[in-house]
C-alpha cells in the first residue's frame, strides 16, 4: 500500500479521535490515536528517501499521534529512529526534539498520580532579556504570582462570591483552587499551571455532586476566557463574560500587570494558551496591551463646577506604606513622604508594589488642605512604564 492509503487511514482515525477527545471520552480517543499513529508509521515506512519534506512532516505526525495515544515509549522510539536516520529536514529535527521534551514531561506527570482539573495553561514570556529556557528569577516569580492572583479571582467569580476588595482569598477559595506549577518544554521561557482537583472529588461525583464543584471544574477554561476577552475585546466580549463591573475592573488591572513593560526591556511578549484545547490560539500580551487596558480603565472625570481647579499629576517614587482600610498609601518622593488618599486599589495589584519604584497618577485637588490634596487615580510599577 502507498503512503497515501496509509496516511488517509491515519487521518480518518485521528479525526474520530479528536471528536472523542472533545467529548471527553479520553480512553476511546487514545485507542483511535494509537490506530492513527500506527497507520502514519506505516505511511512513513513506504516513503522514498528522496521525499524529504513528506518524510519530515509524516515523522512529526506519527510521533505526535503516539504521544496523544499516551504510547510514550513508542513515540520516543520512532522519534529517535528518525532523528538518527539523517534523512530529516531541519524543521522536523527541531519539532521532534521539542516533542521528545513534551513526552518526557507527560510521562512524569502521568506517574505523579495526582489528579488535576481538566485543562492546563501554558504561559510563555519572550523577547527582551529572556533567553531560550531561561529568564530572570524575579520576573518569573512576579508573573507566577500574578497568574495565581488571576486564578483565585476567577474562582471567586465562578463561586459567585462578593467582589473581594481587601486581603487574601479565603481558605474556602484556596480549597477549591490549588494551582500547581509545572515545568514546560523550553521555548522562550515557559511555565505551565494546572489546578489540582479536590481529594474527595470522586466521592462528590459518586454522591450528589453540588453545583459548586461543577463550577470549579471550569476554572482553567474560565481563566483563559477572561484573559482573552480582557486583552482582545475589553469593551465587548469582556462585558458578556464578566457582567459585574467590580470584577471586570479587577480582571483588567490584573491582566495589565501581567503584560510586558512599555519598553519591552525585560520581556516584550507574553503568550497564554491552553495546552489541552486543539487549535487553541494563544492570548498574546504585548507592550501596547498596557495602554489599551489603561484606556478602558480610564474613567472620564466628573468635574463639578466648584472643582474646576483639579489637575492630573504624575508622581514618581517608592511605595512605602499602605493603609488600605483607611484608603491611603504613602509614596517616598526624593526623600519626602507624600500621602495619597482614596486609594481604592485591590491588594493583589498594589501589594506586590511595596518597596518598589512606582509611577502614581494622582488627582491634585485644590479644594482640600495641602496634606490631603492628592487622591489616587492610577498606579503602576515604574519599570513597567519606562
Amino acid at each position, binding site marked *: 500500500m*502507498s*503512503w*497515501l492509503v496509509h*496516511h488517509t487511514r491515519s*487521518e*480518518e482515525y*485521528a*479525526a474520530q479521535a479528536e*471528536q472523542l477527545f*472533545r467529548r471527553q471520552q479520553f480512553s476511546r480517543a487514545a485507542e483511535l490515536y494509537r490506530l*492513527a499513529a500506527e497507520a*502514519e508509521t506505516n505511511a512513513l515506512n513506504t*516513503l522514498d528517501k528522496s*521525499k*524529504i*519534506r*513528506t518524510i*519530515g*512532516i*509524516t515523522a*512529526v*505526525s506519527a510521533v*505526535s*499521534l503516539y504521544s*496523544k495515544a499516551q504510547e510514550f515509549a513508542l513515540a520516543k522510539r520512532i522519534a529517535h529512529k528518525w532523528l538518527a536516520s539523517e534523512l530529516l*529536514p531541519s*524543521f*522536523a529535527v*527541531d*519539532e521532534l526534539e*521539542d*516533542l521528545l521534551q*513534551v513526552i518526557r514531561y507527560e510521562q512524569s506527570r502521568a506517574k505523579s498520580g495526582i489528579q488535576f482539573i481538566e485543562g492546563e495553561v501554558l504561559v510563555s514570556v519572550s523577547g527582551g532579556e529572556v533567553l531560550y529556557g531561561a529568564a530572570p528569577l524575579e520576573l518569573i516569580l512576579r508573573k507566577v504570582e500574578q497568574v495565581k492572583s488571576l486564578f483565585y479571582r476567577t474562582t471567586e467569580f465562578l463561586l459567585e462570591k462578593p467582589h473581594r476588595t481587601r486581603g487574601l482569598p479565603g481558605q474556602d477559595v484556596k480549597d477549591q483552587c490549588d494551582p500547581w506549577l509545572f515545568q514546560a518544554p523550553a521555548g522562550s521561557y515557559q511555565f505551565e499551571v494546572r489546578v489540582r482537583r479536590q481529594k474527595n472529588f470522586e466521592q462528590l461525583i459518586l454522591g450528589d455532586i453540588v453545583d459548586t464543584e461543577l463550577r470549579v471544574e471550569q476554572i482553567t*477554561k474560565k481563566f*483563559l*476566557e477572561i484573559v*482573552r476577552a480582557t486583552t*482582545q*475585546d475589553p469593551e*465587548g*466580549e469582556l462585558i458578556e463574560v464578566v457582567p459585574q463591573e467590580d470584577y471586570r475592573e479587577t480582571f483588567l488591572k490584573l491582566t495589565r500587570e501581567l503584560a510586558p513593560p512599555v519598553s519591552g526591556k525585560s520581556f516584550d511578549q507574553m503568550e497564554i494558551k*491552553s*495546552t489541552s*484545547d*486543539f*487549535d*487553541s*490560539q494563544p492570548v*498574546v500580551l504585548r507592550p501596547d496591551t498596557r495602554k489599551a487596558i489603561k484606556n478602558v480603565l480610564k474613567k472620564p472625570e466628573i468635574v463639578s463646577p466648584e472643582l474646576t481647579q483639579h489637575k492630573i499629576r504624575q508622581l514618581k517614587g517608592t511605595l512605602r506604606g499602605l493603609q488600605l482600610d483607611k484608603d491611603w498609601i504613602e509614596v517616598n518622593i526624593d526623600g519626602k513622604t507624600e500621602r495619597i488618599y482614596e486609594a481604592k486599589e485591590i491588594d493583589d495589584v498594589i501589594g506586590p508594589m511595596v518597596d518598589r519604584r512606582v509611577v502614581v497618577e494622582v488627582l491634585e485637588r485644590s479644594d482640600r488642605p495641602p496634606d490631603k490634596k492628592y487622591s489616587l487615580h492610577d498606579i503602576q510599577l515604574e519599570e513597567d512604564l519606562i
Partner: protein
Amino acid sequence: MTDSIPPLLPLHNLSKRHHALPAPVAEYLFQAARVCFDRHHVSPKEFTLEDDKVESIARVEWERTDDREKGAWDNDDATEAGACAVAIAAIELTRSLFAIRRMSKGSGADYYLALRSQDLEDLENCFRLEVSGTHSDKSEVTKRLRIKIEQTRRGDSNLPALAAIVGFKVQLILLHTVDESL
C-alpha cells in the same frame, strides 16, 4: 454602471471539494462558523477578502443556528473551528487551492493545500495553511496576522505557507503569503 453581485464564499459542501474535510469534519467546522456569524450578524452578509493586500468582496450565506447548536460550542472552540472553515473557503475562492491533507503536530494540526489537479502522492509541493480567528476589531485582526507571519517565519515552517486571519465581527478575511516562493 450596474452593481455586480459579489461571489459567494463556498462554505457549503466543503467535503465534496476538500479531501482533508470528510463530511462530519466539514459539517463540524461549518457549524462552528455559523455560531460565530450569528454572534454578530444576520445572513446574508458581505465580507471583505484581502488576499495579499488585494481587496475584494465575498457574500456569506448561512443558516441561523438554533439554541441547541449554539449551546454545543464554547467561544474558543467555535472561533478556531469556524475560522478554519472560512479560511479554507476563502482560499478556494481566491486561489483555487484545496485542503488535501491534515497532519498532527505537537498541539493541533496543520492543513495542507494543493491545486485540485495535483498528484496527491506526497506533500513535496503542497502549501501549509496557518489559521486564526477573532471576534475583536480590525486592529486585532491585523495584529493577529503579524503574529502568525512571525510564527511561521520563525523556523516552524516546513513548506511554503499561507496565513489566514478571520475577523468575524468586522467582516474581514485576511490572506497573506508568508513564503515568497508561493
